[in-house]
């Protein structure tokens, strides 16, 4: 059995800190979507499969707003400001809230008195309707993306964990003049050549020499870089993580400590009794959909903007939707901090699979986790698993 040695041999512990950070940042998106799933499930006991499509429509809204702000592919804008991002965020949240309410009003409410499976099938139908119906009206082929320039928060915050070896850095610096010289000689020669890739024998020799010097220099520099250890935090994605945590806090406050939150919990506990106690069930359900969908909108806008170049098509929400659903179940569906915890754990699990050298199984891990959770802790990590007395 050679598996263990293979497992250990593939691991590179120097990348572990960065991978954990990557995982947490990735998880922030899942967490935002999972919050929406969890809210709706908590109140209606309905798994809103169209939630991923609301997310998709949020991304399209952000795209259209960015076009409106002058960031079309054909435009050539310079710079941007946080104001643009805020505008996109608000528009996405607003549009998603409206769509969420419409879906609830016209697709789920008529089904509410029927068996639960009917709502579930309706939800799947809604999801497919938005995916394929969207193709008729949304710019889908080729997939679009939001111009990276609209994001003023480019670049990384680098946190050094271990300094570079000074000797190696000095060695690399020493090799630089030779590289510069070879490069300059080739550039000089290039002026007399037809093109960079159609060289005279003399030019070819200079080009080879320049490449060789470059490799020597790069090798030394790589060695120097490898002697240090640092963690890069992409600025945009940090904003995403902070927003997620803030929204989680707000939601928890809203549900646990406000009057409306108490009404929500009452509706969640028992529809009919809550109605008898004077709670307007329909307005509470609508409110839940507004909250959940606008969170999806926020997540979509940040995903499409901060992960530059992300392609937006009508299937944009499918995979994140599925993963967020798993995250919600993992954390304990119906539980707000649980959804965030589940999302972050999912993100970390995914990057750790890649870290271990199994990038082919990155997307499969979600379902492995789902199966394990359902088998051993069906209530989720933070969910209650009390046995109901009937």
């Amino acid at each position, binding site marked *: 059995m050679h598996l263990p040695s293979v497992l250990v041999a593939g691991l590179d512990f120097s990348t572990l800190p960065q991978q954990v950070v990557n995982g947490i940042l990735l998880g922030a998106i899942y967490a935002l979507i999972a919050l929406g799933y969890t809210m709706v499930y908590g109140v209606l006991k309905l798994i809103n499969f169209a939630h991923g499509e609301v997310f998709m429509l949020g991304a399209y809204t952000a795209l259209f707003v960015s076009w409106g702000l002058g960031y079309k592919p054909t435009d050539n804008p310079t710079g941007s400001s946080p104001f643009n991002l805020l505008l996109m965020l608000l528009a996405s949240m607003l549009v998603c809230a409206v769509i969420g309410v419409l879906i609830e009003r016209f697709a789920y409410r008529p089904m509410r008195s029927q068996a639960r499976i009917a709502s579930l099938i309706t939800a799947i139908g809604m999801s497919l309707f938005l995916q394929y119906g969207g193709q008729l009206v949304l710019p889908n082929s080729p997939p679009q993306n939001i111009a990276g320039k609209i994001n003023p928060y480019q670049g990384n915050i680098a946190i050094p964990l271990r300094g570079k070896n000074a000797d190696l850095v000095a060695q690399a610096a020493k090799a630089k003049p030779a590289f510069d010289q070879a490069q300059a000689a080739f550039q000089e020669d290039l002026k007399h050549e037809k093109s960079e890739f159609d060289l005279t024998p003399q030019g070819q020799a200079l080009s080879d020499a320049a490449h060789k010097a470059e490799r020597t220099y790069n090798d030394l520099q790589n060695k120097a870089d490898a002697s240090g250890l640092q963690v890069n935090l992409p600025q945009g994605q940090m904003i995403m993580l902070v927003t997620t945590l803030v929204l989680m806090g707000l939601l928890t406050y809203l549900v646990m400590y406000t009057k409306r939150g108490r009404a929500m919990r009452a509706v969640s506990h028992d529809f009919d009794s809550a109605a008898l106690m004077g709670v307007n069930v329909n307005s509470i359900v609508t409110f839940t959909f507004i909250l959940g969908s606008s969170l999806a909108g926020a997540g979509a806008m940040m995903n499409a903007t901060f992960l530059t170049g992300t392609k937006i098509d009508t299937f944009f929400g499918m995979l994140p939707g599925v993963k967020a659903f798993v995250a919600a179940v993992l954390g304990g569906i119906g539980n707000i901090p649980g959804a965030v915890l589940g999302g972050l754990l999912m993100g970390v699990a995914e990057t750790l699979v890649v870290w271990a050298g199994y990038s*082919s199984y*990155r997307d499969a891990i979600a379902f492995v986790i789902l199966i394990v959770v359902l088998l051993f802790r069906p209530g989720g990590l933070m969910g209650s698993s009390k046995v109901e007395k009937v």
Partner: protein
Amino acid sequence: MTKEYFSIKLGVAALALGMIAASGCGDKPADPGTTTTTTTGTTATNTDKPAGDAPAGERKAPPVDGPKVADGEDIKISAIGSLTGDQKPWGTDSLDGANMALEDFNKQGGIPGHKIVILPGDSASKPEQAQTAAEKAIADGAIAIVGEVASGHTIQIAKSAFPKGIPVVAVGATKTTLTNEGTNVFRVCYTDDVQGPVMAKFAYDKLGLRKMAMMTDNKQPYSQGLSASFAAAFKKFGGEIVDEQKYESGNTQFSGQITQLAAKQPDGMFLSGYFTEVGPIAQAARQAGLSKVKFLGGDGWDSPSLLTSGGDAIIGSYFCNHYNNADDRPQVKTFEEEYKAKHDGKLPGTTMAALGYDAMMLTLQRLKAAKSLSSKDLIASLEDTTDYKGITGDITLKGMNGNPPKRAIVVEVAKPDAQGQWQKFATAYTPDQVK
């Protein structure tokens, strides 16, 4: 079992159902673009077997003779492309090219006594739709089919056409084993056995790269095959493949793979997937601090939307293509003038317009040269093609098993100029140069 568990399980079941439904409806074409399966070599970390066709064997002749065109009847030729779905830009371009070819052919005299009609077919970016389109075309009396761009679609067309004895001229399908379907299958583009080695040679010789890392799209046989053929050639030339990471079409986050790959400190990255993911991968790599790494890829990059998805990161990268708008061959110049006149002064966005033109023009000219206006004689006549001067290069099919030995060019991704041209010619290779 409590109510809550039950509904979660119900949800999971429904989720599975939903996913089956979604994949059944073909949310992603199983096989967009030019799909590859090469049998040359495997990569260092690649445990996948090249997905499989039988090795190149004897090409069988169709069992029956196809239809004939009677005196005075219209000549019907089908042109199939993805007019809807993900690959719409490639489909519309290839049909545009085909229509232009017919117009030109008619201007040159056409075939006296007959009107030529193109029957357009939509493969909707799905293999099964390609098959339906082919069967409809055959039922409607087409004597030849021109298409498709994607190999997965073209195979379906070839399978439908073979038992009926109808010739198929593929536009941009590069999958190496495609023409093994029968002696009725031809193409006007190079195969993946050419473009992998071309990029490997270019990386090794011209860019001086020695340590390459690869990102492969696990969902696309094209990407897997191209990565394998690149890796085999690059190692043969003396280079090293330091890492291969996998992703899937539709992924948006690549930071995990990039971090692993960056730790191996490559000089360059070979991105064998489609433009939809290549752009974000390039941006993620730059963001992760791989500031000097060169990006290389295959003809799956050929779409202007690469520029928006890749941003500044993708500028200065290289990929393999079929021809270039800046080519100074007279055929290219004439084609461009004509295209511009019909499209508000714009040049074609992808190379599929020129390949579509070549495929249709070749078919028409060989039909004119055939002994009679029948599918059978057209097949014989196509097989006889020697040194046809196409826009995308010279095409010889005689004794080539339907695969013309064409040169492949390497282009650099540049900022678009006033004309919208973003592919800068770097160099060209003939298949013999990369053997």
